[in-house]
């Protein structure tokens, strides 16, 4: 078992806890022990960074210190947390002045950022450390004939020089992860588009419009579901479709977090969690079985 400091973030445990179930159940099958630490908000790469960049670096560094103290690398379950923690870790390692400034603040709480650990995202871990073959070998109920619209989202891939996950213009890893389960990852309009979450804080309508366009694209490609690797994107599309229906043409596309789909294909019973989705997934489940 490889131990990781499990960075669950705020969105998953409080808003979409069934995503947490999918991670906690499946990760041990791939030799990962998830260690919980009392992390605070990552904090949010949108709001907090926009409010005060130095405070954002400092609060993130405090979280990184908790993992450093345990000598554990961080595994994030949310792309926003991934961006914040990996970006701050990279900035502080490469910029001694900024590191000094942040450590000056951290002294107030008896902490010091050292730069001794790495930050990874669960999907990148599944692709690179576990590998497609090993995932495919665990599939018991292949999702044959199922069409999936893959949504990479922004923070998982960008800025590419920091995230170093995939080509931001032509990403392929998530498609391969989906196809490892026996499903088909279909091309669709606006595949690379953002989920719009960052704009919802300022203007709900514009944020929803951005998300709506993508759902329409996925439906036009006759996808059976949309799959995300970020809980915020998940909320934008799942709960989002309910909100969109008030202003735009109604859509009804089931949305899954990648690990839910993986668990499904491995034979896990996540039915208690599926019931908590905003967009009903029963018709999708019927197609699978």
């Amino acid at each position: 078992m490889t131990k990781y400091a499990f960075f669950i973030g705020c969105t998953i445990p409080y808003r979409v806890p069934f995503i947490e179930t999918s991670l906690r159940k499946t990760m041990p099958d791939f030799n990962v022990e998830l260690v919980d630490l009392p992390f605070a908000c990552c904090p949010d790469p949108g709001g907090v960074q926009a409010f005060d960049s130095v405070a954002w670096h400092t609060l993130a560094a405090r979280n990184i210190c908790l993992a450093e103290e345990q000598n554990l690398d961080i595994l994030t379950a949310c792309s926003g947390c991934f961006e914040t923690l990996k970006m701050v870790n990279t900035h502080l390692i490469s910029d001694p002045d900024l590191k000094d400034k942040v450590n000056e603040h951290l002294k107030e709480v008896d902490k010091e950022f050292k730069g001794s650990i790495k930050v990874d995202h669960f999907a990148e871990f599944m692709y690179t450390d576990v590998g497609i073959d090993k995932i495919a070998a665990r599939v018991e109920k292949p999702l044959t004939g199922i069409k999936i619209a893959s949504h990479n989202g922004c923070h998982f891939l960008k800025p590419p020089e920091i995230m170093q996950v995939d080509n931001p213009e032509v990403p392929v890893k998530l498609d391969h992860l989906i196809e490892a389960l026996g499903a088909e990852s279909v091309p669709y309009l606006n595949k690379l588009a953002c989920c719009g979450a960052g704009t919802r804080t300022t203007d709900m309508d514009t944020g929803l419009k951005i998300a709506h366009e993508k759902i329409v694209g996925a439906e036009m490609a006759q996808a059976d579901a949309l799959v995300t690797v970020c809980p915020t994107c998940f909320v934008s599309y799942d709960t989002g479709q309910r909100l969109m229906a008030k202003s735009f043409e109604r859509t009804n596309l089931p949305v899954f977090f990648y690990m839910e789909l993986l668990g499904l294909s491995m034979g896990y019973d996540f039915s208690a969690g599926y019931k908590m989705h905003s967009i009903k997934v029963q018709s999708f489940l019927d197609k699978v079985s």
Partner: protein
Amino acid sequence: MIEESTEIIGEFKELYDKVKLCYQCGTCAGGCPVFKQYSRFNPRRIMEKLLAGEFTKELFDDQQIWFCTGCYTCSTRCPQGIDICHVINGLKNMAVKVKNTPEGIITEMTAILETGVTAGISQSALKRRTKLELPEILPPDLNEVQKLMEVTGVVAKLNSLKELAEQ
């Protein structure tokens, strides 16, 4: 011009240095998901204003910069290698100093200050967690979070924003 602040003028100079290579090609706007839906937000226009030294109230006052969703599409594609998303973030930091901050951001910062996390712990969330047999959430050390928000000046900024809202 916005109220005099040598600190902000200094930051503006830094931002200007970052955008001076911009040749106004519009690639940033072309790929921007927000511009596509709401053309009043235009990253190329923001760069143009910065290039012209238009460090005016307008840049902050109509909340344009807050429409940026922070997706880094512009930064990834800019042929001049300008990190536009980062520049807009710098403008947002400056906007907070001149007290232009959307309500949603103030709410979020307040939540972190009071609980250490952004999404509050609601009863319905706890019920769902019980149903799913999930472990208890380890609470963060709130004293440390608050101390850091104090020494980095976040608390002071939040207080003055709230005072302004009450007026």
